[in-house]
């Protein structure tokens, strides 16, 4: 129900032209306003707080849709913030998630290459395990310098860091990784659909290139990775839960990130030169795939968390671990 409604807003408002405009410094206000006015930012807020009280399984297809549409505003993060804040009053505006920042020796807090760091009004951060809401107007912002990126590095001096709002700071990085996994799954769906269509349409040597066996086999392998990314991302979004578990999010982020180079490279290889042009839409998704692979830690980071946890148990097989710990 929510998914169809949000799909229709995205199809209408989150067009490739709108994405390009926002990436070039245009205002996101109209797109953001459409999402906010429809109440979608409150999907995970409790019903007492006027929200829809959705669980992870219910928001999963919505987060995937955000990726499929390359949504250039932090809607997933802002929705997730409601679940992380557990009823604490939330200010209006864009909230991003800073789950993997670090403290300097002086006590400043740095969130490097923060997703939507150039745009968000607030960052919900994990600072020493505490949940802290930071005002980005008080931060020193440095653009990442990556073409088209909406990320930035933000630094807050010790004096402007507010009081903790909860002791669940560790959940920020976990949820942020999970929503990036869902976004990767969505962008991969789009990339795969575009590549399949292109191979059916593009004629060389007198026939569509999709008729060539070498091209077919590349698309088959790409499909395998898109399927893996889809189920891996879904693992982190369990029914009945409001925040992903650490091991499920780790699996989701690791397995989706692992497929990013293969899926993006195949899409580009099969499109040829037009795929790397500004005017062709492929880059809107492939650039994001690479950015999201690195956001909140790439696959070695999360694999190590999974591996350390498994190895620290005195016994138990890998199958049992997958069934009982990852997919509890």
């Amino acid at each position, binding site marked *: 129900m929510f998914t169809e409604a949000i799909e229709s807003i995205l199809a209408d408002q989150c067009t490739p032209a709108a994405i390009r405009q926002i990436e070039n410094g245009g205002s996101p206000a109209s797109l953001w306003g459409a999402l906010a006015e429809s109440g979608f930012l409150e999907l995970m807020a409790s019903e007492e707080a006027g929200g829809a009280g959705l669980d992870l399984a219910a928001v999963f297809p919505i987060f995937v849709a955000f990726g499929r549409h390359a949504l250039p505003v932090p809607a997933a993060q802002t929705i997730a913030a409601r679940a992380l804040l557990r009823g604490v009053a939330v200010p209006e505006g864009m909230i991003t998630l800073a789950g993997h920042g670090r403290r300097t020796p002086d006590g400043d807090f740095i969130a490097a290459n923060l997703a939507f760091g150039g745009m968000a009004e607030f960052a919900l951060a994990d600072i020493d395990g505490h949940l802290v809401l930071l005002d980005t107007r008080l931060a020193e912002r440095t653009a990442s310098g990556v073409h088209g990126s909406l990320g930035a590095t933000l630094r807050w001096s010790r004096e402007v860091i507010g009081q903790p709002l909860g002791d669940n700071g560790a959940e920020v990085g976990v949820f942020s990784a999970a929503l990036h996994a869902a976004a990767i799954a969505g962008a991969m*769906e789009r990339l*795969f*659909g575009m590549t*399949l269509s292109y*191979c*059916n349409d593009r004629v060389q040597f007198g026939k569509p290139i*999709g*008729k060539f*066996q070498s*091209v*077919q*086999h590349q*698309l*088959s*392998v790409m*499909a*395998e*990775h*898109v*399927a*893996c990314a*889809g*189920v*891996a991302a*879904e*693992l982190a979004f369990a029914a009945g839960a409001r925040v992903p578990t650490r091991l499920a999010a*780790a*699996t989701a982020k*690791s*397995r989706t990130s*692992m497929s990013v180079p293969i899926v993006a490279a195949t899409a580009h290889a099969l499109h040829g030169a037009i795929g790397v042009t500004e005017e062709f839409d492929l880059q809107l998704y492939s650039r994001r795939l690479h950015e999201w692979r690195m956001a909140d830690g790439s*696959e*070695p980071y*999360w*694999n*190590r*968390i*999974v*591996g*350390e946890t*498994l*190895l620290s148990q*005195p*016994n138990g*097989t*890998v*199958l049992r*671990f*997958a*069934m009982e710990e*990852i*997919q509890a």
Partner: protein
Amino acid sequence: MSQLLEAFRLAQLPQAAEAFRAEVREFLASNLPAAAPSQRARTWMGFDADFSRRLAARGWVGITLPAQWGGAGLDAYRRFVLVEEMLAAGAPVAAHWIADRQSGPLIAKFGSSTQKDFYLPRICRGEAFFCIGMSEPNAGSDLASVRTRATRCEGGWRLSGRKIWTTNAHRSHYMIALVRTSGTPEDRQNGLSQFIADLKLPGIEVRPIVDLAGDAHFSEVTFDDVFLAEDTLVGEEGSGWKQVNAELAFERSGPERLYSSVVLLDTWIAALRSSGWSPGEAALVGSFTTQLATLRNLSVAVTAKLARGESPVVEAALVKDIGTEFEQTIPAMLEAAIAADPTRPVDPELHRTVAYLSQISPTFSLRGGTREILRGMIARGLGLR
């Protein structure tokens, strides 16, 4: 997005199947023969008639067959659980495996009532082991070009020709062979039929072929004017191609294409637990674990389709292709990891296990259809062919 990919949504095993898992684990705990990891790593190729008969006595051979033949009639989810638990534990399943999963279901679907009455109870008791005569010296992936020929004669057929790479022919009682009954190899899929050949018949010679790991898991089988009685024809004359494809679909649709190297992985993990590990080794353990958790869910999604009565042939081909790649990656990566420091002592059994799997792992993406065949099937499923 393509319809094919929409099939892959997270699905849960029902409670009843998870409860069944406890029964399987209990059985394996008391019936799995004690064996070193390098032996357990042979699972599919581990031939142990005694284990197969004990499994049959427990009621778990002929798992898809109805109870009237002595089959277990397990639903798709319980089948998934049984197979997953056996393969992950490294149970020696080779003796009954083909009869259980391919020959039995084929006879149940296409066989005559006499054939069903004779073979199916024997399969379910673990007394009739089968092999599949498909490949020939000049018919591998191009299966339709088989030349072995059955010719009509008084009271039956006379069979001449040669089958090769036939898994366990030298230890099986029967072969279901795909042979030509009319036309020539140029007629391709037309004119092929399936027969059940008792491998003790005069004129049949079975020569085991030693593999690179020192085992003999497959054979060459020669038919020299072998008399086959009328009732050895399975299904209809000329319908062999259609029947073989149904048979391969039975084979390709299970979870068995993920677990061939899991015994090695668990053995390595046990070694790391006792010796300590580096961050890189922990990340590698995590990489295999997150991949396994993901692939397993692809396989459960296929099982859910089977449980709904669908025939997810292309979905199964997709899982098999990436699943066997995972099976092959484990020994490839662990050779590198285990010998990354040549001065560090390595448990000899771990060394034998990784060596065995590295040697034999090319077969993982050959048996039941090569990568190239599977990727062609996926491409067709995507509408490209």
